[in-house]
């Protein structure tokens, strides 16, 4: 059997999450085809063709796919996916949006956010906000799966030389249309793929105080995140939220500043390689998962840290 991987991108560059999905596809086994759907996305297809382990790239370049509308992408993937045993997408807001649609059109189950491949029919996935891990087996002939990117080490971005075929399939439901988007602009790395993440919680007090985290982040080349408490308090926008209801991250270094460590937050970062916690409350649950804890007032400790890096 063969595996179809749906590429995540912004029409200009391939999102690194796709390299992790390809890694999951390799564990399942079989030839890997990557489907790139977008508008003016030829460069993305060329990039996907260089990824390790990719046998073929299909490029569907059409206005209908520019904004990844689920109605159009869901139908395209259902049609293209008819020839494959497994259809994989990243468990990002794009993948989660269209993959269940594709599965329903194919009358098969969808398996969400797998964190491990046991065999071609059996997978592990977190349930109950990461408080339990289920091993699930799917009886359907075709499997539609979303993959938690941080659970799989990405394949090499270079070295492959797959052929790129253009795909002349246009699905345009005209039921939905794109109105606009507001994307957070930042020179810092993307939260989900950064090597270092520094996050602030309710202890930050207000949004302006996040400035001290930005300073440290810029010295370390880190992304800045936040706990749900900080988002709910209006300190920072929701797209900075790390946790079960926000982004799942697993960087080499995660620094939790003024974060108590609610289970909801831990679910989003506990797979990080090294965890540092800075909190003045020595009883805070975050210290139970931290490799290095510092019991201190963050407004003294963070500027001091900044000066010593």
């Amino acid at each position, binding site marked *: 059997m063969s595996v179809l991987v749906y590429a995540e991108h912004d029409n200009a560059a391939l999102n690194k999450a796709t390299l992790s999905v390809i890694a999951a596809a390799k564990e399942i086994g079989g030839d890997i085809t990557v489907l790139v759907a977008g508008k003016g996305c030829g460069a993305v297809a060329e990039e996907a063709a260089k990824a390790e382990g990719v046998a073929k790239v299909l490029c569907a370049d059409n206005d209908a796919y520019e904004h990844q509308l689920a109605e159009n992408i869901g139908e395209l993937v259902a049609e293209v996916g008819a020839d494959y045993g497994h259809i994989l997408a990243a468990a990002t807001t794009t993948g989660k949006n269209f993959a*269940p649609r594709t599965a329903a059109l194919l009358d098969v189950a969808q398996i*969400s956010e797998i964190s491990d491949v046991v065999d071609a029919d059996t997978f592990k996935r977190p349930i109950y906000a990461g408080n339990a891990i289920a091993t699930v087996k799917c*009886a359907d002939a075709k499997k539609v799966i979303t993959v938690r990117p941080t659970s799989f080490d990405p394949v090499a971005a270079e070295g492959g030389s797959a052929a790129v075929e253009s795909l002349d399939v246009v699905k345009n439901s005209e039921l939905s249309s794109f*109105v606009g988007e507001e994307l957070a602009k930042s020179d810092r790395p993307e939260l989900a793929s950064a090597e270092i993440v520094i996050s602030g919680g309710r202890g930050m007090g207000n949004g302006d105080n996040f400035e001290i985290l930005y300073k440290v982040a810029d010295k370390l080349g880190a992304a800045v995140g936040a706990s749900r408490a900080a988002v709910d308090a209006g300190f920072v926008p929701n797209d900075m939220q790390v946790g079960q209801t926000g982004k799942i991250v697993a960087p080499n270094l995660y620094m939790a500043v003024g974060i108590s460590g609610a289970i909801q937050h831990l679910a989003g970062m506990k797979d990080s390689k090294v965890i540092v916690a800075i909190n003045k409350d020595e009883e805070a649950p975050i210290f139970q998962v931290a*490799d290095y*804890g510092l019991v201190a007032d963050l407004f003294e400790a963070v500027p001091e840290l900044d000066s010593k890096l």
Partner: protein
Amino acid sequence: MKVLVPIKRVIDYNVKVRVKADNSGVDLANVKMAMNPFCEIAVEEAVRLKEKGVVSEIVAVSIGPKAAQEQLRTAMALGADRSILVETDEEVQPLGIAKALKAIVDDEKPDLVILGKQAIDDDNNQTGQMLAALAGMPQGTFASEVDVADGKVKVTREIDGGLQTVELKLPAVVTTDLRLNEPRYASLPNIMKAKKKPLDNKTPADLGVDLTPRVTIEKVENPPERQAGIIVGSVDELVEKLKNEAKVI
């Protein structure tokens, strides 16, 4: 216009989840159950649309055990006009739920279906999208703002890099994200009134749908435990450990 709000009975948000010793699942015996939090947001949004005069009727529906009547009564106490329970004691998975909801949609012909983006038990995040596909409707998932006008609904969606706004032709499916609204509490008079609102009982056979699960749960385990590390005494010690011991900066 009519809104359909599918809801799910799940373990209460505040209950600590315990994996059963035989790894067959999560222990739900004598555990407090409640309406899934994202479903509460869906009910609230429907009620606000009714208060604005956009919506004339709200129908709540649940697929699950007889006890899910409690959550339907809660939905009616919050403002739903009537409800439907598709009763089954079997495990039902998202595709089955979506098929049952499709049958209800065919019957009720709502202009809008508003439901939670995911349930906090299985964390699947599939039902709304699957229903939309089966019913041939457009979808606005992970909504943080919903605006209905002129036979269309404009939905602002929480996406990874920020916000995206799409416009959908009605009938459409909207799934709720956390920031869409803050659900109200049901008042005592409304809880009393809800007891008299109509609750229609159906079975999967009445709907003519096959709810057989496609995925079997082989095992449920505790996640790997992370060991607590050390408490450092100063920022200097922290920087030294990160540089020389962990080698991450």
